[in-house]
C-alpha cells in the first residue's frame, strides 16, 4: 500500500480527494476524487451545470472546497487564491478572455504578470516563446486587430511565460476554426511531451478522443466514470455525460422549397460601435421550407448582422433587406414581426429575456405589437390582457417542455436550457413565416438542444424560411439544408449542406472566400 502511494506521487501531479462544494443546500460537486498525471492531457467532460467549472475553480484557488483535500505533487495543499495557484505552477486559460482591445499584445501580457516576470525584454521573450510552441504572435500588434484564435494565443502565452506544470483549458476550441484547433492540439502535444499536464474541459467528444489520454465524466456534480477516451466512441461518451441515450433529431431532406421569404442584397453597413465589425456586400436568400445556416467564429459580424436583419438597428434609406417580399430596411423590429418574422437573439438573459421579470411579462416583451393571438394583448388604458398571457405561457410551457418552479416563475429562476426553450418557444408559438435565430442552442444541455433543433426543423417543414447563425458545426450539419460562412463581415456564397466538408467550412471561416467577395464587389 505504502509503496503504491509512493509510486503515484512520482507521476501524479495534482490529486483531489473526496472533494465537495456546497452552495446553500445544493451540491455543485459531491465527493469527487481524481488524479491528474504528468505528461497527459486529461479531459473533464460533462454537460452544462455538471460541476466542471466549480471543480476547476477550486483547483485554481478561485473557490474553496466545503470538504475534501487537494494534493499537489504528493503534498496536501490549500490553494487560497489564483495567485497562490500560479505560484504552485497551475495556469489557466479561461473561455472568456480578459484582454484590453486598445492595448498591444505585450502590454496586455505585462499587465497580468507578477513584477518578477516583467523584467527584461518581455517582447523578445514573447516572440521566442510563441515561435517555439507554434503560436505565432506579433508582440506589438493591437489586440483589437487580432482574430479570436490569436487572442487565445495571448492567453496561452501569458500562462506559458510562468512555466506552469499544469495548464487548465476551459472549452478552448469553442471559438476556433477546425484548422486553428488542430494547431492548438499540436501545441498541447508538445507541452505534454515536455512533462506538463493539461486539464482539458470540453463537451466536444471527437476532439477529446483525438488528444486526451484520460477522461473524467461528471454528471449533476457527481463523478460517473473515469475512462480511456481512446477505447470509447463518441456515442458512449455522450451517453455517460447525459445519462441516457440522446434523442436523435430527425430531418426529412426531401422538403419542398418555395418562394424566397427573406433576402439580403449587397447588404453593407459601417459599424457604429468601436471595434465593431463592418458588414460588406452580403447576399443571402432564404426560401420557404428551407433552413440556411451561417457558420463562422463568433465576433465576425454575426451580432451586427442579427441586429440589422431583426430591425433593432434600422437603415431607413437603404434597400438591402426584404422580408416576405417587402423592403424592410426602414421598418422597426415590431413592424418586421407583424410581417410574419420572428427573432431569437444570442443572449437569452438581458436581451431575449429580462431576468427579474416573470415569464408572462417576458412573453409580452416580443409579443405585444402584432395581433397574432385571439385578441390584442395590449388593450391601451384598460391594461394588458393578463389572462391571454397566462394562456400563452401555459401553452409554451407545455409544447416546449419548459420546466419551472411555478407556473409564472421569474426568468432568473429557470436553468439555461429551460430559458432557451422558453425564448425559442415564445417565437415558434407564433408560427412565424421567417425565423432568424442566433446561436440556437448555445450553452444548452443535450436534451434541450435536441428539442429546440427538432422544433426548428418541424417549423421549416411547415413552409417557414429559417436562418440560423451558429458557431457549432455539429448543429449546423444536423439542421441546415444550405450553409454560408461568415468571416470578418463578409459572407461566402451559399452551398448545399451535402457539398461541404468540415475542412471546407474551416478554410472559409479563416477567410478563404473573402477575396472572391471583394472581386465580385469590384
Amino acid at each position, binding site marked *: 500500500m505504502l509503496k503504491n502511494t509512493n509510486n503515484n506521487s512520482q507521476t501524479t501531479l495534482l490529486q483531489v480527494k473526496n472533494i465537495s462544494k456546497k452552495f446553500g443546500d445544493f451540491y455543485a460537486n459531491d465527493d469527487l476524487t481524481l488524479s491528474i498525471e504528468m505528461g497527459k492531457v486529461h479531459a473533464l467532460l460533462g454537460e452544462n451545470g455538471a460541476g466542471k467549472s466549480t471543480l476547476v475553480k477550486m483547483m485554481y*484557488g*478561485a*473557490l*474553496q472546497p466545503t470538504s475534501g483535500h487537494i494534493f499537489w505533487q504528493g503534498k496536501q495543499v490549500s490553494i*487560497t*487564491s*489564483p495567485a497562490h495557484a500560479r505560484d504552485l505552477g497551475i495556469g489557466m486559460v479561461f473561455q472568456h478572455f480578459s484582454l484590453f482591445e486598445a492595448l498591444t499584445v505585450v502590454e496586455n501580457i505585462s499587465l497580468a504578470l507578477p513584477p518578477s516576470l516583467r523584467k527584461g525584454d518581455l517582447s523578445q521573450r514573447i516572440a521566442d516563446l510563441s515561435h517555439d510552441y507554434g503560436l505565432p504572435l506579433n508582440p506589438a500588434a493591437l489586440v483589437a486587430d487580432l482574430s479570436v484564435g490569436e487572442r487565445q494565443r495571448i492567453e496561452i502565452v501569458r500562462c506559458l511565460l510562468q512555466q506552469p506544470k499544469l495548464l487548465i483549458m476551459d472549452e478552448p476550441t469553442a471559438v476556433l476554426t477546425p484548422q486553428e484547433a488542430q494547431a492548438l492540439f499540436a501545441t498541447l502535444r508538445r507541452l505534454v511531451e515536455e512533462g506538463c499536464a493539461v486539464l482539458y474541459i470540453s463537451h466536444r467528444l471527437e476532439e477529446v478522443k483525438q488528444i486526451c489520454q484520460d477522461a473524467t465524466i461528471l454528471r449533476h456534480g457527481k463523478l460517473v466514470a473515469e475512462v480511456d477516451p481512446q477505447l470509447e466512441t463518441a456515442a458512449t461518451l455522450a451517453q455517460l455525460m447525459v445519462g441516457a441515450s440522446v434523442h436523435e433529431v430527425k430531418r426529412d431532406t426531401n422538403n419542398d422549397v418555395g418562394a424566397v421569404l427573406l433576402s439580403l442584397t449587397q447588404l453593407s453597413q459601417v459599424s457604429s460601435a468601436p471595434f465593431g465589425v463592418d458588414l460588406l456586400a452580403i447576399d443571402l436568400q432564404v426560401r420557404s421550407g428551407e433552413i440556411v445556416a451561417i457558420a463562422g467564429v463568433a465576433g465576425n459580424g454575426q451580432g451586427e448582422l442579427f441586429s440589422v436583419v*431583426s*430591425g*433593432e438597428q434600422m437603415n431607413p434609406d437603404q434597400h438591402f433587406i426584404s422580408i416576405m417580399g417587402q423592403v424592410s430596411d426602414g421598418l*422597426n*423590429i*415590431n413592424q418586421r*414581426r407583424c410581417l410574419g418574422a420572428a*427573432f431569437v*437573439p444570442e*443572449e437569452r438573459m*438581458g*436581451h*431575449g*429575456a*429580462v*431576468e*427579474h*421579470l416573470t415569464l408572462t*411579462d417576458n412573453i*409580452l*416583451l*416580443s409579443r*405585444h*405589437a402584432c395581433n397574432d393571438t385571439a385578441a390584442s*394583448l*395590449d388593450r*391601451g*388604458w*384598460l*391594461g*394588458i390582457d393578463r389572462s391571454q398571457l397566462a394562456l400563452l405561457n401555459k401553452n409554451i410551457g407545455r409544447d416546449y417542455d419548459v420546466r419551472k418552479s411555478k407556473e409564472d416563475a421569474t426568468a*432568473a429562476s429557470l436553468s439555461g436550457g429551460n430559458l432557451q426553450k422558453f425564448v425559442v418557444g415564445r417565437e415558434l408559438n407564433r408560427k412565424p413565416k421567417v425565423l432568424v435565430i442566433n446561436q440556437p442552442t448555445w450553452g444548452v444541455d443535450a436534451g434541450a438542444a435536441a428539442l429546440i433543433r427538432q422544433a426548428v426543423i418541424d417549423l421549416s417543414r411547415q413552409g417557414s424560411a429559417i436562418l440560423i447563425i451558429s458557431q457549432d458545426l455539429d448543429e449546423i450539419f444536423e439542421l441546415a439544408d444550405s450553409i454560408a460562412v461568415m468571416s470578418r463581415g463578409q459572407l461566402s456564397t451559399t452551398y448545399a449542406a451535402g457539398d461541404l466538408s468540415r475542412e471546407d467550412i474551416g478554410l472559409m471561416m479563416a477567410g478563404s472566400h473573402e477575396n472572391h467577395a471583394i472581386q465580385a464587389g469590384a
Partner: protein
Amino acid sequence: MQLLLEKRAQASGVMNLFSPLLAILLTVIMGGIMFSAMGKPPLTALYIYFIDPLTSWWSVEEVLVKAGPLVLIGAGLAVCFKANVWNIGAEGQLTAGALMGAIIPVMWGDWQSPLGLLAMLVLGALGGALFGLIPAWLKTRFGVNEILTSLMLVYIAQLLLDWVVRGPWKDPHGYNFPKSVSFEGWHQLPMWGDGRMHLGLVVSLVAALILFWVMRHTLKGFEISVVGSAPRAGAFAGFSQKKMVWFCFALSGGLAGLAGLIEVAGPIGQLQPHISPNYGFTAIIVAFLGRLNPMGVIFAGLLLAISYIGGEGVQIELGISDKTTQVFQGMLLFFILMCDTLILYRFKWVSAKTTEYNKVSAS
C-alpha cells in the same frame, strides 16, 4: 471577525418595503441627536417636528397643501427615474409652468371664464413640458448628460421669473414690490376649508392614481420599466430609448409645470420672485421614499410635507433655524439610499479565513 456585505441571490421583497421605514427611523434618531447637540430637549423637539403638525385641523390642512405639489411632481419623477432618465430640474420646470400659465391673468386679466382657468392649467403643464424638453433634446441630439443640463436650467428659469416680476410683469399699482397683479376670480383655483385647501390637491391625487394604473397595468408602464432596467431587451421589444427620454421629460416636466401653476393660482395668488420652497428638489426625495411607485409617492409626499410644517414649528416654539427642514430632508434621502443597499445585499459576519475567499471571488 469582520462585517461584510454579501450580494443576495434575489432582491429582498421585505427590504424593499422595510428600507424606507428604517430610513425614517434613522432620520428621527439622528434628528434627536442633532437637537440635543443644539441644547434643545430632543423628545420635545421631535414631538413638535413630527407629531404636532397632525394635532390640529389647521396644521393638517397646511400639510395637505404642501403635500399637493410634492405628490404631483414626485409621481412624474418616479416614472422618470424608473425609466433611468434623470430629471433633476423639476424646480425649473415648475417655475416655467407658473410663468407660462400666468400669461392669462397678467395679459388678459379681463377674460373671466372657467375656460380661462382651464387654459391656465393647460399652459402651465405645457410650459413645464417644453422647458423639460430642452435637456431631452440636448441628450438625444448631442448626448449631453441630462442631470447637468436639467439642473442648470433651474437657475435660468428662476432668474427669468425674478426679472419678469421686477420688470415687464410688475404690478403697476403694487407700490414697486416685485410682484405681478393678484390673480382674481376665474384666475384662481377654487378653494375651500379655512381658505387654503384648493382644487390642486384633487389634481395631484388623481394624477398619482392614474400613473399608478399606467405603471402597473398598461403596456406603457411595462415599456418604462423594461427600458429602464434592461435596455437591450427593450430594443428587442422594439421600445425606443430616445423616445423614452422625450416622453419622460415631457411627462415629469408637464406635471412639475402644472404644480407650479397650481401654486401661483392657488395659495400664492400671484407671481413673486420665490414661488416654491424647493418643491422640485424635495420631490426627488419623495420619489425615492415612495419606491418610485406613484402610489408610494402619495404617502412619501405627506411625510415630506410634515417636515416643512414641523420645521416652521420648531422655529416658532424653540427658536431653531428653519434650515432644520433641509437638514432633515437631506438626512432622509441619505438614509434611504443607504438602506436601499439592503435590498440587494445583506450583512454577514465572517471569520478571517472566509474573508480571504470572498476577496478572491470578488477579484
